[in-house]
């Protein structure tokens, strides 16, 4: 079993910082002046009951939603309200709560979608200089194989099969590979265990720890309902409720917090 890597170096240098981050949908306040700091090289668990604003936080950070107020800083640069394209180029990539792979496309194609910024997008290069294109294709083909080899060697043989033919756990793996291929600085995982069995969840957890081992300076934020997973892989947890941070600290102390228990279980009358 692979244990969570506790990073003692540079624990307190923030890679991502949200200050007073607010997002409203009409009268609903999904994020309510949230202050949240993600430290470099940590695995941060983002937990909270349904509707507490976890996915909204991801969507605001990655530019899918514009914030209604507050600021976001990534690697000391102000990225408040930046587009998804800009966040991706800055080094943030993500997976989605409900799998958003392109099902008719092959494993290779899906992973290459994540490598957009490192592929030559020129019209002339793509259409006319086929031998240069072939070299770039070869390089990326090898890189994709190497990445798949880490997660699931049997998938290497299926690299040119449609993703639609894969079971749920392998689709999650492809989604994580798609997010990792461009070597981001910050990886946002939105409920990677959703729709999976207990055993599959355990397998996926090992995968994530494996990634952690391989890429020491990758920071991961993970939204998850599976508390066993949170306990095992995170260095720190932030608990959200009604768009506000109600607890922050190692899993054990957070889980013992009466405010957190109340948020999950409700108050006694």
């Amino acid at each position, binding site marked *: 079993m692979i244990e969570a890597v506790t990073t003692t170096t540079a624990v307190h240098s923030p890679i991502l910082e949200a200050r007073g981050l607010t997002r409203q949908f009409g009268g609903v306040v999904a994020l309510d002046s949230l202050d949240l700091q993600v430290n470099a090289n940590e695995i941060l668990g983002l937990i909270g009951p349904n509707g507490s604003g976890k996915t909204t936080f991801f969507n605001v950070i990655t530019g899918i939603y514009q914030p209604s107020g507050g600021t976001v800083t990534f690697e000391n640069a102000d990225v408040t309200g930046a587009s998804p394209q800009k966040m991706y180029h800055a080094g943030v990539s993500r997976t989605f709560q409900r799998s958003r792979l392109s099902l008719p496309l092959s494993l290779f194609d899906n992973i290459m979608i994540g490598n957009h910024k490192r592929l030559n997008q020129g*019209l002339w290069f793509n259409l006319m200089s086929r031998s240069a294109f072939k070299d770039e294709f070869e390089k990326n083909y090898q890189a994709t194989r190497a990445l798949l080899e880490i997660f699931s060697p049997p998938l290497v043989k299926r690299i040119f099969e449609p993703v639609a033919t894969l079971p749920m756990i392998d689709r999650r793996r492809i989604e994580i590979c798609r997010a990792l291929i461009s070597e981001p600085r910050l990886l946002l995982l939105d409920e990677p265990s959703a729709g999976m069995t207990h055993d599959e969840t355990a397998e996926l957890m090992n995968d994530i720890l494996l990634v952690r081992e391989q890429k020491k300076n990758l920071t991961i934020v993970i939204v998850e309902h599976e508390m066993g997973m949170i306990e095992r892989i995170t260095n720190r947890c932030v608990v959200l409720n009604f768009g506000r941070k109600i607890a922050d600290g190692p899993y054990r102390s957070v889980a013992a917090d009466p405010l957190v228990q109340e948020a999950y279980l409700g108050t006694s009358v």
Partner: protein
Amino acid sequence: MTEMNISRAQSHAPLWPSLAALVLATGYLIALLAAEEQTLIIGLLAAAVVVVVAANYLGVSDAVSRSFAEHEDAFSFCAIAAAFAVAAYFHDNHFVLLLVVTVILYIVATLGLNVQFGYSGVLNFAGASFFGIGAYTSAVLNAHTAVPTLLVVLIGGVCAAVIGSLLLLPVLRTRGHYAALVTIAFALLFKTFLEVNDVLGGPQGLQVGGMNILGWSFNDNLSIGSIDLSFYLNYFLVSMLLLIGAFVLVRRLERSWIGLNLDALRLDETAAGCFGLNIARWKIVSFTLGNLLIGMAGALFGMVGSFIAPNNYTFADSLILVSILLLGGIGNLWGVVVATIIVVIVPEKLQTIQEYRFLIYATLVIAVLLFRPDGLLPRPVRRYFPGARS
């Protein structure tokens, strides 16, 4: 090394099954085109359906498609040779050669539509209008200027692309059905505009000057020794060149990162955006490139037919282009070829159904969508360098 790994995964299929199928199909096409009697034509069509169903049932078509997949390049050269064989067989037959040229140029136009609809998912229900823009460009340029006619074909495509860019703003601001409505509105506007505009001939249309390359006039019949050749052979040659160019271009587009971008934005705009894809930019590239091909085909077709009128470029004609794409298999270039041959040739030969043409197209499209939603030849998963060996 990797190429070997890729090809090892496939069983080695020989070339001959696909080649045999091609020879059979070519022979059949010649027979169908030569047939005059309606009963014979109906018999031939029925025979084709029986043979295809039987081949499917007996697993012959699997062998053919595997052989095709592994030897696509060789197959392509043979298909070009087959087209020339058909043209050579009918070398003095104006009617059949015009039909063949029509098929070729419709394939080019549908390839353009395929870039838009099949790859990036930008619906275009004004295909015939962009085809018409090309044709009207060649009518005007050939009548009033001395621009070389080969260049006119290119300018026709550029005009279609430029006028198409007027639609870009509304198309980019809307999605799905709404973008489709924008193009439908354009198709209706285009026809009305031509009908009320006397400068462009109004409802009576315009004459289009023939093609002429360095004094070689395409509208004169030729003869080699004692063999008379139809002047349409000239147009056949140029159309084939355009088709080969367009096919290679679209094929390379599909097998490149650009093809991947277009697929990604069709399948999930949000996810594609989260991985850096500039949605607007790639929609513009695909819409413009598609219209360029449609316009070039239209410009050449105008010269072939030598006469154009607004009624040739109606919304119904745009629907024919879309139905070719649906029938063939969206995104599959060879599907476009097969479907165009069926959709253009069958009603032309089967005079009895001419009037029911649209009824039959509609039924065919509904049947395809119900029973074979991926078309006659479904699009295979992208391989960037299929069958390649180091």
